[in-house]
């Protein structure tokens, strides 16, 4: 096979070939995205959500972890127009793991954190909500260091 692509694309393909930026085999299976509608109304509130998916066998600490030394999951967001309400975190669960004497307060599976974007009346143009989701993931054997997923969404502001 001979590559007939741009040099940048060839570099990407090259590194993907030996796994340079491929999804980490064995690393935490944690994904997140910012869900926002394509348009928001000026003078109204719109719910923006962080959708976090934690793969089978993995867990992350709750936003309010059961021990003070555990690193919480936290969404930090800002809006380029208007204001955001404090994030409302999903309901966590108490789960017992083999490596812990006590149950831990964690998130597993798919969870959703919400915030309300309040765009002032008279606003126009676009609004961008961005930030990151920080977490620390473990499986039933080991724990990975804290990590962050960048989040960003842009919506058009419409008049009511």
């Amino acid at each position, binding site marked *: 096979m001979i590559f007939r692509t741009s040099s940048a694309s060839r570099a990407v393909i090259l590194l993907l*070939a030996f796994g340079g*930026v491929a*999804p980490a085999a064995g690393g935490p299976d944690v994904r997140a995205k910012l869900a926002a509608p394509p348009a928001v109304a000026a003078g109204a509130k719109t719910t923006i959500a962080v959708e976090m998916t934690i*793969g089978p066998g993995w867990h992350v600490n709750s936003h309010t972890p059961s021990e003070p030394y555990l690193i919480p999951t936290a969404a930090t967001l800002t809006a380029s127009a208007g204001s955001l309400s404090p994030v409302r975190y999903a309901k966590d669960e108490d789960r017992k793991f083999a490596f*812990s004497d006590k149950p831990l307060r964690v998130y597993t599976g798919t969870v959703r954190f919400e915030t309300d974007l309040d765009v002032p009346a008279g606003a126009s143009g676009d609004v961008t909500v961005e930030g990151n989701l920080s977490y*620390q993931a*473990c499986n039933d054997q*080991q724990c990975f260091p804290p990590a*962050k997923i960048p989040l960003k*969404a842009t919506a058009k502001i419409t008049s009511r």
Partner: protein
Amino acid sequence: MARGLLISGAEELTKKKIGSAFEALARSRAPVIFSAALILSTLAGAVPASDTSASALRLQRLDGAAFSLDALRGNLVVLDFWASWCVPCRTSFPYLDDLQARYAAKGVRVVGLTLEEDGEAVNAFLDQVPVAFAIARDPSGRAGEAFDVVAMPTTFLLDRDGKVVARFEGGDARAHAKLEAAIETLLSGKTLAPGSDRRVGAGLEATGAVKAWQRGYLADPFMNLDGDPITRQLREHIHASKEGAAGDGGAAGGGCGCN
């Protein structure tokens, strides 16, 4: 021609020339690309070496005094990477403390190595889980990379010459059993058989996909906004491609690179 590319790729290698080397190889055929990339990354140190010597590490005790694994030569050393936020580490520490007590007279030494910068968190952990074995920290922040540690706890067994001879991932009874079996094997004068290690999953060693834990470096290299220039450029390229493919103008926001 392929052989010539492999040889010239290797001869040209320095870390600064990796980018141009990739460009040259990208103009060749796919099987050569993979082989040459593997050679390049091995020579660049990105692929973990199979026999890491710990003697080059310059560690410190928590009081700041120098601590050298070299000084422990002549002993078998159990080197345990841990962190204050790691619950399996908390479970494993009492076992390691007991291990030290049982085997100290036979020339076994346990060292707990933390890569954390938060001294208060480290001290709080040790107040809650007191142990008698040596605790060290790594001022350089490079020990994780040197040992290809990506998760905690990860424990290494070093022979009397300071050479890493086994790796154990996780802090459960199975990892402990294998660790102790390996210690007994070495104490009896035998060498470790293949399979003496304890690996909990493929890919938990540092590879190009998962980077080793080092100071200031977040766990997921794909999400790390402070990565090296090549990684940043590639991430932007892939992110832009995904956004373009999604056709939603970016409303889906930052993906994870995990799909």
